[in-house]
């Protein structure tokens, strides 16, 4: 796999039919990847900045956003000790 | 019409009347094979107060399950005797525990000191009810002595079989005595009726 392919920007898919434009994904994206259109709906404004953390997907109340190519390790910003994560 | 016999066992809360009723009903129903229905005054309200159990027997299915006109009334205390003797049929039998019942409203009653017998002869006041059962088996034809003994044995706690058998016996014996004593009274009663 080429280097460029590895660093390829993640593919973020927003499923408009289910999205309710709540703005949560946009507000909490740690990398400022997402923005809201005039209707309040999210769109991927800065695809390259995405760090594949998956937080947008995790917090979307409507299962309307999908992050492809996410880091297998589930790279969430996590504020809770590993041993208490229920694994 | 079919044969029907109505019994009321009455007294106060701690005298074991409900158990008596059950044993009697079981003896008549299960061991003697008749139709039987047993009811009772019920509930915590009855705590310490009056208590009564009724047994109706018949050779066919029993419709009204409570005692109507009584063929037999057992009164283990004065109050129940006073309250219920009016429900007796003309030829009904009244049996009283003469330990507690001093005033017997009608002549043709059997007066037997069940409690005193239990207390003094058997040293256990609580078997007064079994003594009374023995007397009933003797004084009436509604239950066979065999059936009553089998029913008592099936219901009493283990280890008390002898005591209870003795109590039954004591009751039967006392009844025989009483029977003799009361015969003339009953006859005189009958005579009265005829006049």
């Amino acid at each position: 796999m080429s280097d460029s392919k590895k660093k390829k920007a993640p593919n973020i898919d927003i499923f408009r039919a289910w999205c309710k434009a709540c703005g949560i994904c946009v507000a909490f994206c740690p990398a400022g990847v997402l923005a809201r259109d005039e209707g309040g709906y999210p769109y991927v404004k800065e695809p390259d900045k995405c760090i594949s953390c998956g937080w947008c997907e995790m917090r979307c109340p409507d299962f309307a956003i999908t992050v492809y190519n996410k880091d297998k390790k589930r790279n969430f910003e996590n504020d809770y000790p590993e041993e208490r994560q229920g694994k | 019409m079919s044969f029907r016999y109505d019994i009321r066992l009455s007294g106060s809360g701690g005298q074991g009347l409900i158990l008596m009723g059950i044993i009697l009903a079981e003896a008549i129903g299960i061991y003697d094979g008749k139709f039987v229905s047993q009811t009772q005054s019920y509930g915590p309200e009855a705590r310490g107060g009056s208590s009564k159990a009724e047994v109706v027997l018949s050779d066919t299915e029993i419709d009204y399950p409570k005692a109507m006109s009584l063929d037999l009334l057992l009164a283990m205390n004065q109050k129940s005797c006073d309250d219920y003797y009016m429900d007796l049929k003309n030829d009904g039998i009244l049996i009283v525990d003469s330990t507690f019942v001093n005033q017997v409203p009608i002549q043709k009653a059997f007066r037997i000191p069940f409690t005193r017998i239990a207390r003094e002869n058997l040293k256990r006041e609580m078997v007064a009810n079994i003594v009374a059962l023995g007397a009933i088996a003797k004084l009436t034809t509604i239950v066979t002595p065999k059936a009553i003994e089998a029913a008592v044995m099936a219901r009493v706690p283990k280890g008390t079989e002898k005591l209870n058998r003795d109590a039954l016996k004591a009751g039967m014996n006392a009844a025989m005595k009483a029977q003799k004593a009361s015969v003339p009274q009953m006859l005189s009663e009958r005579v009265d009726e005829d006049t």
Partner: protein
Amino acid sequence: MKKKTKKELLLQGNEAIVEGALRAGCRFFAGYPITPATEISELLSVRLPQVDGTFIQMEDEIASMGAIIGASLAGAKSMTATSGPGFSLMQENLGYAVIAEVPCVIVDAMRGGPSTGLPTFPSQSDVMQARWGTHGDHPIIVLCPSTVRECYDITIRAFNMAEKFRTPVIILVDEVVAHMREKISIDEDEDIEIFNRVKPTVPPEWYIPYEDTPRGVPAMANFGDGYRYHVTGLTHDIRGFPTSRPDEIDPFIRRLFRKISQHFAELHMGEFFETDDAEITIIAYGCVARSAKRAARDARERGLKVGALKLNTIWPFMRTPVEKVLQTSKIIIVPEMNMGQISREVKRVNKTDAKVFTINKVDGTIITPEEILRKIKEVR
């Protein structure tokens, strides 16, 4: 003297209900103690664990009703027992069992009411409550025994009906019958019909949990059987999902009624006692039916043509049998230990010239044969 066999027993009505329930396959009981139903709890707490069943005493009657519905959904035939105050508390979840079509059996041992009323005295005053107690219009099956034997038989029938029609079935027993002891013989080898819920046979993808069927009763999968479906107390479509579409609600509610009304004949149980030539018929149920029979006997002895119709099914109302005696008798007497509940129904269906009289007693004592006889003399 006959030999005591294992099967001849002197039982209370409440005890016979327990025996009937166990025989019918009841394996779960949740309840809260209350006079005069407590014996049912107490005896089942002894008996259920012996047959791998479960007895649990819940924190109240609401919880008891919830628990038996849950247990039934998980596959157990389930029951609760209570008296008026607890029965009132069960009403909300009782309606749930109706709309979600969950089989279960509820015993209401009737005592004097309203409210705490007369805890240890008999009454027949929950008859209308059993029909109408929960909010929202709904059908219901209510049975009522008069003898200890009937306590046993009717409890078995109640479980059968519950399973067959996927519906709660109520047994109304009055304190007299609940606490009365009679001899009954129970033959464990006897071939008694036991009905178990019809389970789906289709593959899970095809299963339609609230499907309309000719009988009106859809097949019922238990939770865990591999048919994952949704159960709700909201009005729902045939798949069980909430709907507020009139075109889905209407057939659903009507099916609930139809599954009962279409089987009246099967549901109606009772006894005609010398009614054929009766000029006067007494219609009664529960302990009063016994007084009624006695009164009829005594009246006949006195040369009066009196019969009795005993109702063992209270709801759906036994319209056809009642209409029959309305047609043949000039006078109908309905003695009840309430202010007149079933008599209203008799009057409702009365399209004849028969006169309907009532005897109503609300003082905690049973209606005696003499009281009925007195009425007969009064009105004939």
